[in-house]
């Protein structure tokens, strides 16, 4: 099967400005791609820039102090950094949509579900209100909501977390997007609901041939869902690999650490080895390799020179001096 590119992110850099002059770089020249029909995982500890990456792609940071200061986001042949806000709005919620970590707070508490769904549908189609409502109802049954008519009439606070996330997914899917960005879609949900939501996403992805950028810090979710994985650390990509490679031969010490801290079924291990130390403050990054202060293999060179993202095999990349080619 020939892979077709849907999204190419090229040397993207995003900074948060405290004032006109001073800023911190939250993501630093990251590059990756997403093929049509693929589920790409984006993993890393809290604060490493996963959400900022997705918000930068959607150009939703313009409403904060954040700004993309460099790089391109080519989506379906078009550079999203270059198009006008009007054109970008047609893409948001249309060809590219997004679901968030906190389903409960991501729905407007003062608006009924039907109105919130119809709003999105009518922005990207020319359906009438009635048609849009029917479509919304259909979408809700598609995401496994047994009584869509009742849910449509509800306000968000009348729904459970799992239910709200289903609504969010239905909403995101309602205009047939080519790409879905799911930013920790199950983190706020309890375990059984998590599994249901993931299964649902996978099912929809297979039926619709959609691409998903799945952001998570749960490697178990990655193993379950993704074909390829990107590992981020302190605003940079440190490893990129197909999912089997990543779990079988992690090459970056950070990835190794992440995998070691995933509980294995039936292993009986209670206390998991976790990576010592914590994610560095973006305004006080160490010189050299950003992971060096926490890395057990760190050498003098690591502490002074920043490694490149080395291509170590046809489809695996790693930002570590030990993998220098």
């Amino acid at each position, binding site marked *: 099967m020939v892979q077709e590119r849907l999204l190419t992110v090229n040397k993207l850099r995003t900074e948060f400005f405290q004032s006109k002059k001073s800023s911190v770089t939250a993501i630093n020249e990251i590059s990756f791609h997403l093929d049509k029909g693929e589920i790409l995982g984006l993993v890393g500890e809290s604060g490493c820039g996963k959400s900022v990456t997705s918000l930068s792609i959607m150009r939703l940071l313009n*409403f904060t102090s954040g700004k993309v200061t460099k790089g391109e986001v080519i989506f379906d042949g078009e550079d999203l950094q270059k198009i006008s806000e009007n054109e970008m709005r047609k893409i*948001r*919620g249309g060809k590219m949509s997004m679901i968030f970590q906190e389903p409960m707070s991501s729905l407007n*508490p003062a608006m009924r579900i039907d109105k919130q769904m119809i*709003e999105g549908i009518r922005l990207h189609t020319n359906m009438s209100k009635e048609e849009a409502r029917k479509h919304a109802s259909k979408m809700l049954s598609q995401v496994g909501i047994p009584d869509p008519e009742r849910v449509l009439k509800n306000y968000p*606070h009348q729904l459970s977390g799992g239910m709200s996330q289903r609504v*969010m997914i239905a*909403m995101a899917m309602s205009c047939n997007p080519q790409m879905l960005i799911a930013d920790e879609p199950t983190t706020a949900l309890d375990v059984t609901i998590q599994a249901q939501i993931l299964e649902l996403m996978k099912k929809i992805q297979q039926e619709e041939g959609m691409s998903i950028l799945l952001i998570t810090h749960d490697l178990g979710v990655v193993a379950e869902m993704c074909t390829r994985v990107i590992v981020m650390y302190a605003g940079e990509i440190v490893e990129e690999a197909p999912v089997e490679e990543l779990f079988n031969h992690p090459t970056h010490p950070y990835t190794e650490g992440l995998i070691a801290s995933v509980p294995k079924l039936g292993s009986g291990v209670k206390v998991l080895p976790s990576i010592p130390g914590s994610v560095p403050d973006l305004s006080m990054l160490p010189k050299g390799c950003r992971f060096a202060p926490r890395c057990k293999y760190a050498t003098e060179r690591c502490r002074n020179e920043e490694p490149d993202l080395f291509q170590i095999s046809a489809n695996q990349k790693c930002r570590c001096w030990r993998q220098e080619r």
Partner: protein
Amino acid sequence: MSRYFVRRILATIPLMFIISIFVFMFIHLIPGDPARTIAGLDAEEWQVEAIREEYGLNKPIVTQYVDYMVKLFHGDMGESMKSFTPVSELIAERMPQTLKLVFAGVLWAPILGIFIGVMSAIKQGKIFDHVCMLIAITGLSAPGFWLGLMGIQIFSVQLGWLPSGGLDSWKGFILPSFTMGCGIMAVLARYSRSSMLETLREDYVRTARAKGQKESLVMFSHAFRNSLIQVVTILGLQIGGLLSGSVLTETVFSIPGMGRLLTDSIQFRDYAAVQGLLMLFALQYVLINLVVDLLYGVINPKIRLD
């Protein structure tokens, strides 16, 4: 849906009773002997006693309260101890002036205040925001009556554009309504700004943008509406204070309204009139708060549906 509304309406009844007890007690705790005041300082003790008898002032206080409340329910607020006309008539005569004044303040101030607050939030950190908040802080720190006096000094005395008192023409309304509304406008501008800023950081605002919604509609139908939920409570408190706030404005602009009636009655120790007016002020305060709570239920489904 209706359960919240019914419950809220019923809750005002005991509240009114408690307030009425407080007002009644308060009046009777004021130092001075009303019977003596009516009779005059050089009256004989037996004359004072006769007046006590006539007004029921020698009965136990509980009996007096019950008598008063029973009469009140029949629309009888007693008789003025100054002019010997029924208090209800006195009030009815003065009420239109005060209501006009209150409306003149209420019509523009909250709307302008909320508008300024919301726009400041949207333009946060820009010049517009700074200018508006400067005005709001000035409006908050300058007492209304002082603004009124300054207005009279500038526009009536020096420029001669506006009358210095009375509500006889539309020109007469300008300064009093400004005096009445200024504080409300400032308070609401501040509150709606901070409430709107808070709302703009909410996840659902991001969701609305992620849908591809226009920024103007994101602001209006998602952020603004939710930010109102907090503002409405403040609005109620502010409007509730207007009627009593009219006391100062009426004095400054010599408007013969209920506020003036209250100050005059207090000076004369006209207990019946003071009592009637305070009951009425309390009632309007409770009613306005009721309306606000009902409104709160209308815009906040969480409250209404629980």
